């Protein structure tokens, strides 16, 4: 079955600093999804990557999928307190509609 490992597990950064979260798959990814969960709330869809080498940006968040499609990174530039939350990567494991999630990365942004 598809397994997704995220690193780091938790991250504390000072406001204004850049950071990167990684998501590594045990199998080739056929679609990689990034979600954000604000503490105590639901999940918000951020981005979806499908092609090897693909890169997408939204505001200050950039996600990349490597050429081999087994690793994705999420980069936040000039972090803000609003970026705090849990970031989850998700991937299609080969079964229709079955989205498997990574282990999650808890991000705190200090002033």
């Amino acid at each position: 079955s598809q397994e997704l490992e995220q690193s780091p597990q938790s991250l504390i950064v000072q406001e204004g600093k850049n950071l990167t979260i990684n998501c590594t798959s045990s199998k080739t990814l056929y679609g990689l999804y990034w979600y954000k969960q604000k503490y105590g709330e639901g999940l918000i869809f951020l981005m979806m990557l499908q092609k090897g080498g693909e890169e997408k940006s939204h505001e200050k968040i950039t996600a990349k999928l490597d050429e081999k499609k087994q690793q994705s990174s999420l980069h936040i530039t000039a972090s803000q307190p609003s970026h705090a939350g849990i970031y989850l990567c998700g991937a299609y494991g080969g079964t229709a509609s079955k989205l498997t999630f990574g282990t999650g990365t808890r991000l705190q942004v200090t002033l």
Partner: protein
Amino acid sequence: DTAVSQTPKYLVTQMGNDKSIKCEQNLGHDTMYWYKQDSKKFLKIMFSYNNKELIINETVPNRFSPKSPDKAHLNLHINSLELGDSAVYFCASSYSGGDPYEQYFGPGTRLTVT
């Protein structure tokens, strides 16, 4: 204009009780899901329904029974609650004609079994 809503948001109950969590989506989606997030924040799919038909049923105890009266609703009934059922349960929906993995999540229901 809530997209995916769940009720209740918090549920505290005793072991052995039976409880239900309701989920409704007003996005016109045809696929709905239940996820369980454990204490370590690991999110795992439990069930998935497409047009009221069960399509994914992960290894979940029989005490958990989803019910989809129509495409916009997917309820989760839990019998004989156990301590290990304490978790946050998320409902989600998507449209199978679009990107099925762009799922929209509800705010979650925090279930505490005492």
